[in-house]
């Protein structure tokens, strides 16, 4: 047997969708996390409710690399339908656990093979018959616990969490885990090198998914109105609002300082948000690509009428319905240019669950300050997977409600004001909102041409001046959006520019590049568009900058080429989209291949 490999391998669990294995999978993930081992979990699930194959991969990385890996040292096979593939997927020297009731031959000799009496142990469990299939998943938890050395206490903590401390289910699940562990101890002989050991590398981290974080961020950002329409992978964002708002945002006398509404479609969801944003509420909607496509016309109106709204786009693989349960970063060019005519949209690009929280509140400040839609571009990987992340940080600045005039302001101005006038030289005008009872407060909002007083106008010069002011406002956005995070290394030959959920893969790839004898790299993680000064400076200071992204067309590369044409020749695309999060190996290879050219 080879040397032990500790806390540095991947486990993939192959099950049937709807079989309840998610509970077992996140229990494993959480137990490892509680052991202090850096872990990440990727759920690869089908666009179906029950019956199709589904996989869950847990990566343990003592060095803290949380990107997806393509390799699986350990595979747990519970699904007859994918059994062959799953067996083939085990790395040589790895381990294969499988339910012994699956009637298929296991003919690899280069790996350790462990049958598990899943059915038998589940039958022995102390639960009602209808829960037996569900609890059967705990068998592999127990077997893995024994064979990999996962702490039972940590498993119990994970189950406690999952079942909100309810004794009965924790007890029955833990019972199965223990029985399975005992069975494994007696019946299986370890013949693979992979082991877990406690560390303390997860201190100061929490675990959450990006959609929950986004919802919480929005709540701490004072969201007052959210309209949504169900769509994978965005639904759980709005559903988390439904979960947490009642806990966090009721007044002393039990009134709700918010409203969440499930609309009849995305056209209406964004329309409602625009109505609410116009009337002075912090308003949002959350959706994915198909929904964004349907929101196009309203996004243009919000841009043109200068209405603050926040739109979360939890991206999935497109074009079209595409792969609804797979991840991608394919909506960048669409959103950047969203709306016919000359529209320019402001976009935030969160890269971590913590940043989902941060942009959850910050997006409202930006939207209200800019009187414009703000799009937050998350993705399925970030939004729906559990990630270890730094704790959510309480907003570090007071809410910015932007330039809103209320009755007393208008009294001071003797009622003299103009809705679309640039008084401050930043392109941002003042606004009033419905409910303001000052007789000079009202104005008539429209998506058609208007002068500074919001009066209808078709005058060419008036039109052009107003649009020029809005362009100036977009310039102001450039100074307000979050700056990129830049990591420079001495002697770096190349730049890497990426964003969003690629971050762990890029961070790891920088190391892998070095290990492969490739170039030293500086790294700019973009956090918003339009891009700030720092971005062009970064590009300018590198002969070659690789734009790493999870889409086919190098969308950010295209956007940056358009935005910073002088630097465009320095940009190189490293892009690829197959529905899965990027791996560090792929990033390394994509860069190396071009370095060799």
């Amino acid at each position: 047997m080879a040397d032990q490999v500790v806390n540095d391998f991947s486990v993939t669990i192959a099950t049937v969708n709807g079989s309840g294995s998610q509970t077992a999978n996140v229990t494993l993930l959480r137990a490892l996390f509680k052991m202090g081992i850096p872990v990440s979990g990727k759920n690869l699930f089908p666009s179906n409710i029950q019956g199709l194959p589904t996989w869950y991969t847990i990566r343990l990385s003592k060095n803290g690399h949380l990107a997806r890996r393509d390799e699986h040292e350990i595979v747990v096979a519970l699904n007859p339908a994918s059994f062959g593939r799953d067996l083939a997927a085990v790395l040589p020297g790895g381990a294969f656990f499988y339910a012994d009731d699956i009637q298929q031959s296991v003919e690899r000799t280069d790996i350790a093979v462990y049958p598990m009496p899943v059915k038998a142990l589940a039958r022995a469990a102390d639960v009602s018959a209808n829960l037996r299939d569900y609890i059967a998943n705990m068998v592999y938890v127990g077997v893995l616990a024994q064979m990999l050395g996962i702490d039972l206490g940590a498993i119990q903590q994970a189950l406690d969490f999952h079942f909100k401390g309810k004794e009965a289910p924790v007890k029955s699940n833990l019972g199965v885990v223990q029985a399975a562990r005992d069975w494994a101890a007696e019946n299986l002989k370890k013949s693979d090198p992979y082991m877990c050991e406690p560390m303390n590398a997860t201190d100061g981290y929490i675990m959450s998914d990006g959609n929950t974080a986004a919802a919480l961020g929005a709540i701490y950002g004072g969201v007052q109105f959210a309209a949504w329409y169900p769509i994978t992978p965005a639904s759980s964002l709005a559903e988390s609002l439904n979960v947490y708002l009642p806990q966090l945002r009721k007044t002393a006398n039990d009134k709700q300082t918010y409203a969440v509404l499930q609309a009849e479609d995305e056209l209406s969801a964004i329309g409602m948000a625009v109505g609410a944003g116009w009337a002075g509420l912090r308003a949002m909607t959350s959706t994915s690509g198909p929904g964004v496509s349907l929101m196009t016309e309203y996004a243009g109106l919000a841009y043109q009428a200068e209405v603050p709204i926040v739109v979360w786009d939890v991206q999935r693989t497109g074009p079209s319905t595409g792969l609804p349960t797979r991840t991608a970063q394919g909506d960048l060019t669409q959103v950047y240019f969203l709306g016919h005519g000359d529209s320019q949209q402001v976009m935030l690009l969160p890269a971590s669950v913590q940043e989902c929280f941060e942009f959850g509140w910050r997006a409202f400040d930006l939207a209200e300050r800019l009187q414009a839609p703000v799009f937050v571009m998350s993705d399925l990987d970030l939004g729906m997977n559990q990630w270890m992340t730094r704790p959510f940080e309480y907003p570090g600045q007071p809410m910015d409600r932007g330039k809103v005039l209320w009755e007393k302001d208008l009294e001071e101005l003797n009622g003299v004001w103009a809705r679309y006038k640039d008084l401050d030289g930043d392109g941002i005008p003042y606004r009033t909102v419905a409910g303001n009872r000052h007789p000079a407060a009202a104005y008539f909002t429209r998506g058609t041409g208007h002068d500074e007083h919001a009066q209808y106008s078709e005058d060419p010069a008036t039109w052009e001046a107003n649009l020029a002011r809005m362009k100036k406002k977009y310039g102001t956005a450039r100074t307000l959006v979050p700056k990129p995070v830049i990591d420079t290394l001495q002697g770096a030959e190349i730049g890497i520019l990426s964003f969003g959920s690629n971050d762990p893969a890029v961070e790891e790839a920088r190391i892998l590049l070095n290990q492969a004898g490739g170039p030293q790299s500086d790294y700019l993680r973009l956090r918003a568009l339009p891009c700030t000064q720092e971005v062009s400076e970064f590009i300018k200071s590198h002969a070659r900058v690789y734009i790493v992204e999870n889409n086919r067309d190098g969308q950010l590369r295209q956007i940056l080429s358009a935005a910073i044409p002088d630097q465009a020749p320095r940009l190189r695309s490293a892009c690829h989209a197959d529905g899965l999060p990027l791996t560090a190996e792929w990033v390394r290879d994509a860069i190396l291949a071009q370095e060799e050219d």
Partner: protein
Amino acid sequence: MTTPVNPAQVNRAGLGRADYRGQPSTLCQGCGHNSIANQVVNVAYELGIVPENIMKFSGIGCSSKSPAYFLNRSFGFNGLHGRMASLATGALFADTSVHALGVSGDGDTASIGMGGFKHLIRRNAPMTYIVENNGVYGLTKGQFSATAEVGLNLKHQGTNQYMPVDICMEALAASATFVARSFAGDPKQLKELLKAALSHNGIAVLDVISPCVTFNNQENAFHSYSWSKDHSAPLHEISFIPKLAEIRLEEEFEEGTVKEVTMHDGSVILIKKLEKEYDPTSRANAFQMIEEATANNWLVTGLIYINSEKPTLTDLYHLPETALNRLGESDLRPARTTLERINALMF
């Protein structure tokens, strides 16, 4: 600014008629939509509504321009074609003491806006929803809308062959709590129904037949005077809009009677005013009555259905006394300690 007023000419809100004015209309002379706008001014004045307590919504179309022509002192949002419903829905939550008044067209509501319209109704959103119904797309120069009757001929559009959408029937089917129909040329009835609609707590759908002077015409009508009868003259070249007077009913139109009204193009519609005894609180009645009217080719006017019992959309939310849009950071941002609790919860 409040206009200085002669106390003799103020309403119970202390405002003069001028406080209810809008911008000068840019619609065609004789357009039914203009009289509806005028009636809104009259009704708001007479009811003593403070204009700041109203917010106006519309989509896109000649009809949807109307809100610019009344109540300058009310906030207004002239949104997207067919999307008034969602716009208003969101705004309703900001300050529930502001009443929403929407004006849409038949194209705006029954063609492109059908989905939003139906869902607004089934949520019983508290707003007055006026459809200025002329059976055509006025602003885009005379194509069929979804309320055009079967067999209607329009230049370059041919003959409409599809079943018309009946706004009142659709409102009823969607469980509206207030459904009425009127005629732009019957100011007395229109005013009454408008008052009722504005007083209703819930969705009040008011379908107002509002003839388009310019485009709702047939082959035998003005636009087809011998010169340009030929089908091949592109419609968008017909740029001359004759100045016609608005169609008005004489005053003595009695409840329960049927009246023939001649349109600008010479065609005739049959308007039937609901009987005095008609009970508008029964949905079954309402369906039966509309079915009967359809069979007889009548346009029934009056209050067709009302139910004042149902909670409205915003009633279903337990909102604070203070308008939501006046809440500040202390109301909206949970305390720092709560986040510690949340973080602790996040495994």
